[in-house]
């Protein structure tokens, strides 16, 4: 907990303050904002972007980007739906869907790490290719490729435990696990190392290419899980699921404090970013503000956050901050031995 507080960036503190102000202001105009129903609504919306944002955090900390998550979300939903429609038992259908996410993640990771194709390009390619494949499957016969799922599956999206919606529980569990992975395991440490200085990481014996591939696989799997939860919620797999989601996901991760330069970021930060964007969208919606205002607000936040990131990483500013905080740079006490 102490580490969490120490690691807070200025812009995250500002974000929390803004969030509190936002919630207070909206509730003043529209008390139903804090009603149980709306909070549950927000919680479910959180999971739709939140899961992919957690995966994207790892990708961006490692210095990459994954534009394909929206399409992989639809792929996962589609694969699961189609498998169930042809009679495959639910657990295997879910595994099949997860495997499809692994495959796309592997393609992304291998292209980026081994073939040295820029992440932006290859994940843009998979974004189009995967979405196209899903649309081709339905081939104009409507946007729903599967529906009427078994009750067990529907529970994942519509059920709740102790009042908490299932999608939220799943997402929170994932967040806890991924936070621990990032901060306390070798996998997380190597992610940070590679994102800061891939060559230094390589010289230390870290298998950089293998690790990057695993990270993109993680991102793909997160997208599939998100797709499964949405499908379970609406009880239908649609080819339009997740369209454009990748942009909101990236915005949430950056707003939450993950650096565009790689090597810096956190899961709690992403949690904050996703929470903020979700609440902001819901607030604008409940106040009947034009949906275009949401895009404007998201864009502005993203630009401000990116500017803050650039400023925070400028050498001159770091030196200034060090001097202000009284960091003593050159006193190294060394004593002679024997």
């Amino acid at each position, binding site marked *: 907990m102490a580490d969490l507080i120490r690691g807070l960036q200025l812009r995250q503190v500002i974000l929390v303050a803004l969030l509190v102000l936002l919630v207070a202001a909206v509730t003043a105009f529209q008390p139903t904002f804090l009603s149980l129903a709306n909070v549950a609504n927000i919680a479910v919306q959180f999971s739709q972007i939140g899961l992919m944002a957690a995966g994207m955090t790892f990708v961006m900390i490692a210095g990459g980007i994954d534009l394909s998550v929206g399409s992989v979300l639809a792929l996962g939903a589609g694969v699961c739906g189609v498998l169930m429609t042809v009679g495959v038992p639910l657990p295997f259908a879910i595994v099949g869907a997860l495997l499809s996410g692994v495959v796309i993640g592997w393609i992304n990771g291998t292209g980026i790490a081994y073939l040295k194709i820029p992440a932006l390009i290859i994940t843009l390619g998979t974004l189009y290719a995967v979405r196209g494949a899903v649309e081709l499957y339905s081939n104009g016969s409507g946007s729903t490729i599967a529906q009427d799922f078994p009750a067990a599956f529907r529970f994942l999206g519509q059920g709740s435990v102790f009042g908490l919606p299932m999608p939220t529980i799943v997402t929170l569990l994932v967040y806890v696990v991924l936070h621990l992975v990032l901060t*306390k*395991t*070798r*996998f997380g*440490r190597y992610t*940070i*190392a590679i*994102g*800061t*200085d891939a*060559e*230094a*990481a390589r*010289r*230390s*014996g*870290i298998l950089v290419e293998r690790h990057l591939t695993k990270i993109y696989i993680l991102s793909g799997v997160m997208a599939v899980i998100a797709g499964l939860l949405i499908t379970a919620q609406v009880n239908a797999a649609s080819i339009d699921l997740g369209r454009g989601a990748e942009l909101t996901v990236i915005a949430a991760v950056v707003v939450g404090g993950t650096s565009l330069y790689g*090597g*810096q970021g956190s899961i709690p930060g992403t949690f904050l970013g996703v929470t903020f964007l979700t609440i902001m969208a819901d607030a604008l919606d409940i106040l009947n503000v034009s949906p275009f205002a949401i895009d404007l607000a998201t864009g502005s936040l993203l630009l401000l956050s990116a500017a803050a990131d650039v400023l925070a990483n400028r050498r001159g500013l*770091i030196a200034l901050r*060090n001097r202000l905080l009284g*960091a003593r*740079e*050159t*006193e*190294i*006490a*060394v*004593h*002679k*031995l024997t």
Partner: protein
Amino acid sequence: MILAQPSAPLLEVSDVTIRFGGVVALDRLSVTFYPGQIVALVGANGAGKSTLVSIISGAVIPDEGSLHLRGQPVRFRTPKDARAAGVETVYQGLALIETLDVKGNIFLGREPVSQPGWIGWLADGSMERRARTLLDGLGVRLDASRKIRGLSGGQRQIVAIARLVEFEAGVCILDEPTAALGVQERNAVLQVIKNFKSPDRAVIVVSHDLEDIFNVADRVVVMRNGRIVGDRPTAETSADEIVALMTFGSYAERGGEPPRG
């Protein structure tokens, strides 16, 4: 009189030759490194110091000649081979991860993990304790939890050296360790290098700073035009002689006699 060398050679470079295009970068070069010694490797730009270091560290394969480690012939095809054999090089870039802390960097790539191993759960407590022991062993007081980003150049150099201790490197090459450091920091790093000396390792310091060399090294090896033109214990030579060797080479090399009068 030669330095008393009670131990067997650790690394022997024998008749190593390498050509880049038409240029002979190293010309039948032979030099031996002993454990428990700090050797300064000096020479003007283009003398071949970097090439020699590249060969020892496995970055470059010689055209002719051989390397022997503890009496056994070795062939380093890549830097990874060299590292696996216990030859570690700290280049001027230092290769530290700024966003991690001191202990994270000391153990990077070789982190101890708790059981079960496949989870990769970092044994933070044990790393902290071990890092503190390492730094104490070098005579330094430095908080192992500080991020590299907040450290000065001298402190970073010390972290890079601590890493070598943890890796139990046998042959340690330090490339210009005091470059770009202020006086206070430079003295601190030099003291750490002296504390770093140990009977199980041979330390090679590539440097152009004569003051540093006479401060820290037991022996000076001077290179010129891809050859060794001088190999003296520091106690038996002077800055003037080193500069003369670097600039003009040895008298024997020039086939002449030292001037009289």
